[in-house]
């Protein structure tokens, strides 16, 4: 009886929450529309520039957009090492186009959208930029989320011992089990416990960043894994681990592989190919994750922009028709991106695992027998 009541209660609660969220969204949209109209009324007419909009959304920024607002940004700290030392200030001092303390966001071709230091002679110099940009903040949020999730799973084991976790923790365990027991352990064998922390961390970090990127408003919306700097670091780490855990056999296979002498002796052809292979593997990791995630975002952006492009070209009627089509496809793309988020995180992990296992090669059977 009590249980039934609780169930009805929960159903009611979720309905109420849905209603509240819907109301808030509708109110925000109304407010956004209103503020936009005000903006226009004051004579600011902004020409739609699809290319710029797309790259603005794909790229990094010095503040975090507030939904349904064109000018308001959540301020983030800017930390730059300029010609005259360290400068720290909040991004809202310069995102409006102002110059603060000799720094501004460049509009020039070379440093477009980046913080530059304006020199006395008017030239712009790019300082060492350690700003907590939107992407950096996004990375921090993703990292905290991962820590929270994983620690939650760990706490479950500490508190409940051998009981099977339920709900979200159970799902998390399922993923850990899938990645570790079904992927890392079979490939790495006895080395698995040594490399599992890195691989699992990478998997969950990538997955969280991928999924956060799909949420359009704060704390999501930063195109993290679709940014080459992020995938560069991840691929670099795999490269470093692979290189530093290489066995004697691994290096021997690179510099003195078992091939006919003429392929390796006067002209080091095989060596060249092998050394190139050392670098192309992490490079492929970097580009694969970056391209997959970025293209997903780009398709969604283009689909949404189609509404505005068609409205500008053919009027509101066509725009409404396009929006139905666009929203349906955007939804489909976003769902596909959820799938891609999992797949790419998994692919990165499994390939890293394979590269590490390749670096851990032991001498071949026939050689050991000699």
């Amino acid at each position: 009886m009590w249980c039934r009541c609780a169930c009805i209660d929960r159903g009611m609660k979720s309905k109420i929450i849905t209603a509240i969220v819907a109301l808030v969204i509708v109110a925000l949209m109304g407010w956004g529309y209103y503020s936009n109209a005000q903006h226009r009324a004051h004579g600011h007419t902004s020409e739609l520039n699809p290319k710029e909009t797309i790259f603005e959304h794909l790229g990094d920024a010095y503040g975090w957009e507030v939904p349904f607002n064109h000018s308001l940004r959540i301020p983030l700290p800017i930390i730059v090492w300029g010609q005259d030392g360290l400068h720290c200030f909040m991004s809202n001092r310069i995102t409006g186009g102002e110059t603060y303390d000799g720094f501004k966001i460049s509009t020039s071709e070379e440093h477009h959208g980046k913080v530059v230091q304006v020199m006395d002679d008017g030239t712009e110099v790019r300082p060492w930029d350690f700003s907590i940009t939107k992407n950096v903040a996004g990375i921090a949020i993703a990292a905290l989320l991962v820590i929270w999730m994983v620690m939650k799973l760990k706490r479950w084991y500490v508190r409940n011992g051998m009981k099977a976790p339920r709900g979200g923790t159970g799902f998390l365990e399922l993923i850990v089990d899938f990645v570790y027991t079904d992927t890392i352990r079979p490939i790495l064998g006895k080395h698995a416990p040594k490399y599992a922390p890195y691989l699992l961390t990478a998997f969950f970090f990538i997955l969280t960043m991928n999924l956060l990127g799909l949420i359009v408003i704060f704390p999501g919306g930063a195109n993290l894994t679709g940014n080459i700097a992020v995938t560069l670091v991840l691929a670099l780490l795999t490269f470093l681990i692979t290189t530093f855990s290489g066995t004697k056999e691994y290096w021997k296979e690179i510099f003195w592989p078992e091939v006919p002498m003429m392929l390796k002796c006067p002209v080091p052809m095989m060596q060249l190919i092998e050394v190139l292979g050392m670098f192309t593997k992490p490079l492929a990791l970097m580009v694969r994750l970056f391209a997959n995630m970025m293209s997903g975002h780009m398709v969604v952006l283009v689909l949404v922009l189609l509404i505005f492009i068609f409205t500008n070209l053919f009027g509101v009627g066509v725009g409404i028709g396009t929006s139905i089509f666009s929203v349906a496809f955007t939804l489909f793309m976003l769902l596909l991106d959820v799938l891609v988020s999992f797949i790419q995180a998994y692919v990165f992990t499994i390939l890293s695992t394979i590269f590490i296992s390749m670096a851990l090669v032991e001498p071949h059977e026939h050689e050991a027998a000699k």
Partner: protein
Amino acid sequence: MELFTPEFGLVFWMFVAFLCLYFILAKWAWPFIIKSMEERADKIDKGVAVHQEAEARLKNARAEADKLLADARSEQADILREAAKMRNELIEKARNDAADEAKKVSQAAQVSLEQARKEAEKQLRTEVGDLALQIAEKVIRKNIANDDAQRALVDQYLSEVETKN
């Protein structure tokens, strides 16, 4: 192009963030989680094995118990049958014994009857002899010349004997 040139600041922070994340999780979370999961997997595997064994054992035990019960039942039936047989035998034997005894008794009775008869006969004979002798004596003693008288006397004695008997 801007998209394809990694930003130095982002690379730096990403590196820092990843290393922090890695050291925190590698130190406090992953080994413990993996260990716990493996332990639980082992435990579940073992549990399943134990359960299967127990089930098999239970099945065996049940079969064994059934067998024991059946054995006991058949044994009981055997014993009962044996007992019935024995009882019948006993009764039969008792009956036979009784019949034998009765036969013996009757035979003995017959023998003794015969003997008695023989003895009686013998006695009769001696008595008859004695009587005959007495008669003869009396006959001789009287010294009778008359045949008729002699015959009448014999008759008289004989009838005496008859009445006596």
